Each structure stands twice: as C-alpha cells, then as structure tokens.
C-alpha cells in the first residue's frame, strides 16, 4: 500500500493496539477512526466511549461526529449520560484505554495543547485541554498519536496541559496520579513507549521502510533505543479499505457501472 497517508498509517497502527472486549475513551478525529477500525477488524466487542456522555457508539460510516457532544456521536449508542459522569467512570478506573493527540509532546510524554510560548505572553493561545488532561490522568493505559516531527517532539513542552510522566522516575505517582499509565506513542515513523525506570521515551519498532536515523532526525530530544527494534507490519489492503469507508462513507458505484 504505497498511497497510504501519514494519518491513515497512524490510525491503522493505533487500531492494532486495541484489544477486543476492552473499553476505549476516544476523542474525535483520528482516535475515533482508529477505534472504529479496530471494531470492524479484530475487536468487534470493543466499547467506544466519547466525552459527551456516550457509551458504546457504533459510528455511521462517512458521518463521523466532529464534536463528541453532537447527535451523530450517539449513533447506535447503548447509553447516554452527561459529561461529568463519563469522566467519573474514568476516575473509577473503568476505561482500559485513552487516546490523545497533541501539538507538543516531550520525552516524558507530557502534552501541550494550551499555549505556544508562555502563558503570560502567548505566541499562540491554543484551544486548551478539553478532556485531554482528564483522559491522561484517569484512563488505565493511554496512547498518544501524533505526527513525528521535531517541532512536535520537543525536549520540554512549553506548558504541561496533560501530565505524562512529568519529570520521569516516580514523579507522576508522587504528584498524586496513581491510576493511569502511558502505553505507547504512535507516529507515522514508529511505535515508542516509556522505559520503566527512567520513564523516558524509547523507540520500540519502526514503520515499514523507516530507519532509526530517520526517527532520531525527526525527534527534538535524545531518544532511548530498545535493544531490539522491530518493524511494524505495513497496513493491509483490508485495513486501508475499511478505514477509508469509515472516514468517507460507502464507496458509490459510478453511474453506468454494472
């Protein structure tokens, strides 16, 4: 599949991390597409939860919600509750996975979606946390999905909107974040995780055809490299087709075709 876009590659890689019978707290956009793809491939009993108060959405291909609070997000849902209640399920530990993107991520998995520059003198005031801070604080295992480029993979985020492993070691637990953990970082170049004692980001596997040197060049900090760096299987034609149908809707048969 040579025509696969970076977004498609990341979503497909991320979808493979979601096991059947689990509960995933997804945001709109790529996380939701990845979760929807998992349900249509290897994890048909995966439950998708959305921030607006939706439990068990089944998604209408080509009409995915843009907001987690709109009616489209409820399509086929098993339960509708309110926003605060959804997050309290997360706090109680019911959600196996959380899924986040970010404008900036650092070597400890801290995320910034608040401000480029300083809070006192912002160069760019970004929209803010929304539920990101809660998802990374409260879901059992969190996946970060983002494009691999130096301006995103920075040594220190300008602002910790959503706490990863803070300053590494046991600093996350010492801050009182006793529940969640960061499972993996999925990019268009690689799959990464966090080394268990230092909690620094570590390269685990490469996307097909990508080299370690390429990943290093696109990372703005010193990356740990696992002893054995694997290679991820490329997206299958089936995964790509299902992903695109989910995103764009069923392919229309051209007029006049048999």
């Amino acid at each position: 599949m040579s025509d696969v876009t970076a977004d498609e590659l990341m979503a497909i890689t991320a979808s493979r991390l979601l096991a059947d019978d689990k509960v995933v707290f997804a945001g709109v956009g790529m996380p939701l597409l990845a979760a929807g793809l998992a349900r249509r491939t290897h994890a048909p009993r995966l439950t998708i939860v959305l921030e607006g108060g939706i439990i068990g959405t089944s998604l209408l291909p080509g009409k995915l919600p843009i907001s987690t609070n709109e009616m489209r997000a409820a399509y086929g849902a098993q339960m509708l509750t309110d926003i605060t209640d959804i997050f309290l399920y997360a706090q109680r530990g019911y959600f196996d996975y959380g899924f986040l993107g970010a404008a900036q991520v650092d070597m400890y998995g801290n995320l910034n979606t608040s401000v480029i520059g300083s809070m006192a003198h912002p160069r760019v005031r970004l929209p803010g946390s929304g539920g990101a801070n809660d998802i990374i604080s409260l879901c059992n295992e969190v996946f970060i999905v983002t494009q691999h480029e130096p301006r995103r993979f920075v040594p220190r985020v300008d602002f910790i909107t959503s706490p990863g492993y803070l300053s590494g070691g046991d600093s996350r637990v010492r801050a009182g974040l006793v529940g969640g953990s960061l499972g993996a970082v999925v990019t268009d170049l690689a799959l990464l995780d966090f080394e268990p004692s230092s909690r620094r980001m570590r390269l685990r596997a490469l996307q097909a055809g990508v080299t370690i040197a390429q990943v290093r060049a696109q990372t703005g900090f010193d990356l740990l490299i696992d002893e054995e760096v694997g290679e991820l299987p490329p997206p299958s034609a089936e995964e790509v087709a299902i992903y695109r149908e989910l995103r764009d809707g069923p392919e229309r048969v051209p007029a006049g075709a048999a």
Partner: protein
Amino acid sequence: MADKRMTAAQAAALVRDGDHVAIGGTLYSRTPMALVFALLRSRRRHLTVSRSLACYEIELFLSTGALDRVVTSWVGIGLPWGLPQIFRHYVERGEASYDEWSHLAMGLRYKAGAMGVPFLPTLTMLGSDLAATLDLQTVSCPYTGQRLAAVPALNPDVALIHAHRADMFGNVQVDGYRHMDVDIARAARTVIVSAEQIVSTEQIAARADQTMLPHFTVDAVVEAPHGAYPHECYGLYGPDLAHFDAYVASVRELGPAAGLRYVQQNVDAHADFAAFLAAAGPGRLAALEAEARELLPE
C-alpha cells in the same frame, strides 16, 4: 408555583454588568442561542462567561465588549474550522483572560456548586501546569492521607439553559445528552430556561422520569422554538455547519471585526430571535430537522 414565562429580552434583563453567566449545552449542542442573542443585544459589560466547552458565542461576546473573562476547558468550533482567531486576538493581547480548567474539573466545579459544598476532591489535574497556573490546591484525605486536587465550587450568578420542554412553572425536560446542565442550573443563583415548547404540567407529569430540573430551581421560562439554532438540539434539528463555515470565512476575510459584524447582521438587525430564524429560512430549518430524524434510533 408561579408563572415564570417571559420574553427573551425580559429574561436577559436579569443579567447585570459584571455577572458570571454560565451557558448550558456544550460546544454546538443545545446551546441556549435565543438567550445568548438576547444577552448580546443588551450589550452588558464586564461579564465572565463559563461553559464546559466554548464555541464561537464567546467570540461574539468579546467582539461586543461584553466579556472580560472566560472560564472553560476548550475554545473553538471543531477541528475542521481551525483555531478560534477572534478569541486568540483578545487573549494573546491580554484584553481578556482565559481560566483554563480540565473538562472534568469544570464539571466538578459546577457539581460542587450544585451540591452546596465549597470544593470537591478529584484525581484529575494533578501535576499539570494547568493546576499551577490556576493555583489549584490539594488536600490530604483525612482517612487515608491520599493526595487529591480540591477543585473549588463555581456558583454562577446566572445560568442560561435550553431545553426541549418546560411548563410555565419551570419544570424542565430534555431528550438526549444532559451535558452539564443539571449542575450548572443547580449551582446558579438565577436560572433562565428557554424551551422548544411550553407544555402543560400534565404533560410534564406524564413523563416525570424525563424531568431534568424541578420548578423551584428555575426563575424564568422563555418559549423559543429552534432556540438552539444554528447549533443542534438533540432529536429535533442538526447543527448548521454551513453557518459555521460562513462565520469562519468572514473571520478569515475581515479579522476580529467579523465578530461585531456578525452580531450586527444576525442579532441587531432583527427585532427578535424569531426574525433571525425567519431570515435563515424555513427550508434550511426543515433540512436540519430531517437530518436529526435520520440519526434517531428507530
């Protein structure tokens, strides 16, 4: 029980300069737009506005000089429309402030307010720069010693809520998501509810399990069919995404001046919200209604 019916203009007059106004619904879902328009028209000053997730109504309040402070977790319309440029203009220049809380923290702030307690303990926001910026305090559990964030209660001066049905006394029902509306209303000192339909108390009683707010929590009831347009109202009409496109295109063309222009053209130019709806056209509203019906479970 008193008859609390009034017009949107009369209800908006309950808001005073300097008030903290909480807006119900979320982002572009069940936003009390008829009430928001009435408040925009009144040109109040020095308001604080809070919401779970804030949409472009925030930019309209900024553009009319009504707003000093926004308290929320996220500002924008959604990914396809990019960063909120008018909001950026005011906040980056220091002309308005943005207290950024996490989404759960916003919910718990309203809930603490609704419960009548000064704070609620939670496991969210700990360790983040959000907590540091807001000077969020922590508490130790008196039983276990566990460290918890203590999010302070939020008791807005006025809550604006849009609902599907209400009776004249303020018994309020909604279909679908409740967003943070129950806690927002119970936390607020004055509660204004607009409803798609004013129904009899018998009709409320026939579906009492659907009642979201009892009459004694509500101060004003405003009849407002399509009162969330151009935002959606669950089960009744979808969001007018083309309206958002046009707004964002106008901001791109005119810069921050587009906000005031929007208010002049869509709020000031009309006698009331019904006239704004009439200008949108019955065909457009009918199409959005059909869209919502398609999504309802059979």
